[in-house]
């Protein structure tokens, strides 16, 4: 395994070197001004062209929109989805007051119902991207509660419940006209397209170039709409997982040391990916193989 992968990495390194030379010939590219709206149009047009028969809402269903055999198994599983327990636990936690008598509902607009599609957002006061998961923990801390671990457990259950109240609402991510917001967006975009780890893969290698194809036993989900079903119950995990859990495992699969959950790098990536999916309706919580 090792010699093969290092050979692959070396070959890729050579390729990447070639790319550096190529970029050198177009210095203008490196200094482009971020234009999220233009990026979004190109991104969605790419997937529309690749999968012309697929309505945009279907992109929320990832591999199940790509493969008939997988879709059938999914439909069987959705007859009684394994995330039901998490939604129930999340609803209960969401409705239970904190020790100080306040609730999650007090921390969010609309009492926290039907708002999943607006996360992450750029907090212009703090100058940073705020994901739903981060907002939940900040809500807890403001009310004297300990923050929850980010990858699974109660955090997944609460976000599962909040996603369920937002089903069908299209992603509605905004990028304010703020230099820091644009920088965060651009940082997420850079991460998405950068090759990382010993296997020399970027997010785009799997979820743009190879979207819809089989990689070992799995069908790769297209990047468009990929976060619309989160959090997810993955058969492979046998439990629920948040966006952080997915990013962490993606990093590890390319043999790149994952960032800590809610690292600004991951938050910016989520910001970019969610913005690219504007218009894809929330379908979370979801199930995945």
């Amino acid at each position, binding site marked *: 395994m090792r010699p093969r992968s290092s050979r692959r990495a070396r070959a890729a390194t050579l390729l990447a070197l070639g790319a550096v030379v190529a970029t050198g010939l177009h210095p203008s590219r490196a200094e482009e001004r971020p234009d999220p709206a233009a990026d979004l149009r190109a991104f969605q047009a790419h997937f529309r062209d690749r999968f012309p028969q697929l309505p945009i809402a279907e992109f929320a269903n*990832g*591999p199940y929109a790509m493969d008939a*055999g*997988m879709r*059938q*198994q*999914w439909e*069987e*599983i959705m007859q009684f989805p394994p995330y039901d327990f998490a939604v129930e636990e999340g609803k209960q936690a969401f409705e239970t007051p904190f020790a100080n008598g306040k609730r999650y509902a007090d921390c969010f607009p609309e009492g926290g119902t039907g708002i999943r599609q607006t996360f992450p957002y750029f907090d212009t006061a703090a100058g940073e991207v705020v994901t739903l998961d981060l907002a939940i923990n900040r809500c807890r801390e403001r009310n004297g509660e300990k923050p929850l*671990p980010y*990858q*699974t*457990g109660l955090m997944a259950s609460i976000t599962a419940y909040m996603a369920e109240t937002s089903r069908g609402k299209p992603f509605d991510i905004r990028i304010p006209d703020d230099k820091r917001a644009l920088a965060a967006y651009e940082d997420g975009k850079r991460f998405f397209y950068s090759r990382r780890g010993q296997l020399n893969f970027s997010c785009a290698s*799997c979820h743009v170039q190879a979207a819809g194809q089989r*990689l*070992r*036993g*799995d*069908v*790769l*989900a297209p990047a468009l709409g990929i976060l619309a079903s989160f959090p*997810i119950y*993955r*058969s*492979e*995990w*046998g*439990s629920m997982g948040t966006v952080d859990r*997915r990013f962490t495992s993606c990093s590890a*699969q390319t043999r790149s040391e994952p960032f800590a959950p809610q690292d600004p790098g991951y938050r910016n990536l989520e910001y970019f990916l969610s913005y690219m999916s504007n218009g894809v309706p929330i379908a979370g919580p979801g199930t*995945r*193989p």
Partner: protein
Amino acid sequence: MPDRHANPDAPADPARRAVLQLLAAAGLIALGTGRAAAAVPGWPEEAFRKTSQADALAALYGKPLEMSDKVTLQVPEIAENGAVVPVSVGTTLPNVTSVTLLVPENPNTLAASFKFGPGVAPAVSCRLKMAKTSPVIAVVESDGRLFGVSKEVKVTLGGCGG
């Protein structure tokens, strides 16, 4: 009421790990000498221990199996994940008293067996684990005789997609 299931992803605390280790040791002994704890009454312990289809069926029913196109088995051609393979069995045969599912390539062949009371439609669905590519065999007991059908399910290495 059982304990809330511990999260497998969370690091076990030392006390819990010690208990797990103790249980693991007990489990190893149980593997060698038979089960440490008594099975739930009625649970076909011997059949569940068998590693071949013929032995499991012999322990469970003690009668021969014939293949029949009157038994329908719905399984995926390629399992999206070996941990969760949806399986549905149905039949047009009369007086069905039980349905049994076998996965010959699993460490223990017998996966599940369902006993039907009167008035229950002769069909059942559940989700099974499959260690690797294997036939899935559905056996229907009808009028005291055994009828079966077999279908292969491919289990590929997962761990990347989603």
